[in-house]
C-alpha cells in the first residue's frame, strides 16, 4: 500500500501507531492520455481574488485513481461515451430523426463542453442537459430525458468527451453576467446548520485533509465524472447537490436555475484547465 505520509510532522506523529493514512497522489504528476498532455494547473482567471493558480481535481486523487483516468481502457467512464455514440444515430420520437440527422458526426460537438452552461437565444442560462432535451422535445418530437438518467449521462459523457483536452472557456460577461453574479453569490454563501460555503472548503482549504477526503479546488472540468463512490458516472448538478447537503442544508433540484447559475460560476473558476471528461474520482 502506498501509504505516503503527507507531512514530516504527521510521519512523526504516526510512528508506531496503526493510524491509516489515505494514499495521496502526486500533486506534481502530469496527466497524459494517449500521448496528449492535459493542462491540470494554470494561472487563475482574472476574476478570482484569492487564488493565483488553479489546479484540476485529478491532482488531488490517489495515484491509483489518477492512473485509471490515464488509461481509456481502464476508465469506466468510456463505456458511457460508447453508449452516447450509439444513441447519437438512434432515431427516436415523432419526427423520425436522430441527433446525427441535424448534427452529422459526433465530432461536430467538439468545443461544446468548454462553453457550458451557456445563455440561449431567449436569454436563459442553459446547461448541456437543457440543450439536449430541447433538441429531443422540439426537434425530434421525443421525450425529455431525466437529468440523471442513463441516456442523459451517456450523451453528456460522449458530447463532453469530444472537447477532451480543450480549455474551459465559459462566457461570463454580457447576458451571462447576471447568472454569473448569482452563482458567485451562492459560492460565498454559508449554507446549512454547519454554516459552510463552497469557498470555506474549496478556496480556503484545498490541499488539506477533511478527515479522509483530500480537498481539491472543486472544479467541474472533469464532468461528467466516474466516481468510485457512485459506482457510475454522475452529473455536475449531482455533485453540487451533494456538497450542499453535506452542510446540512436543503439542497436545490437538478436543473434548477440556482444550480445552473452555480455551475456557470464554478466552471468560470476553472477557465483554462483542460476538459477531462469523463474523469475518474473516488
Amino acid at each position, binding site marked *: 500500500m502506498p501509504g505516503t505520509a503527507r507531512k514530516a510532522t504527521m510521519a512523526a*506523529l504516526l510512528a508506531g501507531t496503526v493510524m491509516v493514512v489515505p494514499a495521496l497522489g502526486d500533486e506534481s504528476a502530469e496527466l497524459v492520455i494517449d500521448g496528449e498532455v492535459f493542462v491540470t494547473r494554470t494561472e487563475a482567471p482574472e476574476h478570482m481574488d484569492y487564488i493565483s493558480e488553479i489546479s484540476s481535481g485529478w491532482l488531488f486523487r490517489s495515484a491509483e485513481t489518477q492512473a485509471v483516468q490515464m488509461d481509456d481502457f481502464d476508465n469506466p467512464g468510456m463505456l458511457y461515451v460508447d453508449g452516447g455514440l450509439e444513441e447519437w444515430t438512434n432515431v427516436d420520437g415523432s419526427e423520425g430523426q436522430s441527433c446525427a440527422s441535424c448534427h452529422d458526426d459526433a465530432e461536430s460537438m467538439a468545443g461544446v463542453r468548454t462553453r457550458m452552461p451557456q445563455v440561449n437565444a431567449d436569454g436563459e442560462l442553459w446547461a448541456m442537459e437543457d440543450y439536449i432535451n430541447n433538441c429531443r422535445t422540439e426537434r425530434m418530437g421525443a421525450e425529455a430525458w431525466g437529468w440523471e438518467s442513463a441516456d442523459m449521462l451517456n450523451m453528456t459523457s460522449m458530447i463532453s468527451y469530444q472537447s477532451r483536452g480543450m480549455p474551459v472557456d465559459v462566457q461570463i460577461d454580457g447576458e451571462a453576467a447576471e447568472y454569473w453574479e448569482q452563482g458567485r453569490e451562492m459560492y460565498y454563501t454559508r449554507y446549512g*446548520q454547519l454554516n*459552510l460555503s463552497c469557498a470555506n472548503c474549496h478556496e480556503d482549504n484545498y490541499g*488539506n*485533509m*477533511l*478527515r*479522509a477526503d483530500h480537498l481539491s479546488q472543486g472544479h467541474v472540468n472533469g464532468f461528467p465524472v466516474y466516481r468510485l463512490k457512485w459506482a457510475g458516472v454522475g452529473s455536475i448538478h449531482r455533485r453540487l447537490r451533494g456538497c450542499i447537503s453535506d452542510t*446540512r442544508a436543503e439542497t436545490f433540484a437538478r436543473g434548477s436555475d440556482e444550480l445552473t447559475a452555480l455551475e456557470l460560476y464554478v466552471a468560470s473558476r476553472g477557465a483554462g484547465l483542460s476538459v477531462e471528461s469523463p474523469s475518474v474520482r473516488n
Partner: protein
Amino acid sequence: MAAAPALADVVAPGDVVFGEYGEVETSLTGVPGDSAAGREAFINRGLGNCLACHENSEMSDQPFHGEVGPMLDGVGDRWSEADLRGIIVNSKNIFPDTIMPAFYENAGFINTREDLIGETILTAQQVEDVVAYLMTLQD
C-alpha cells in the same frame, strides 16, 4: 444512576452568556461532563466530527485526522474550561469568520435542512462532555 438534568437547568442555545472574549463561564447543564462520552462525540461523524478538521495524537487509534483546523494536542493547557466551552458553543465569537461550525447555536443559518431547523448540532450535555474531554488533553 445519574439523574438527567431537569430541562429548567439547561441553558437554551439563545440564552448562553458569553464573556468579553467569547468564553462561557457557566456550565450549560450543571452536570459535570463525561470525558469518555466527549471523546465519542469528538469522533462521531453525526455529532462533533471534530476529527474531520483537527488532528489529535491522543486518538492515533483512529484513522483519518483532518488538517483544516489546528492540532488539538495540549489544548486543555492552552485554554481554560470557559474558553473551550465558548469555542464549542460558538467559536465565531473568538475566531471571527472561522470555518468551525457553532455546535450550540440553533438560529441564523441559511436554508437549514428542514428536520434540523431550530436544532443544535450537539446537546448541552454533549457540549459539556466534549469540554471535559478537551480538558484531558494536557501537554
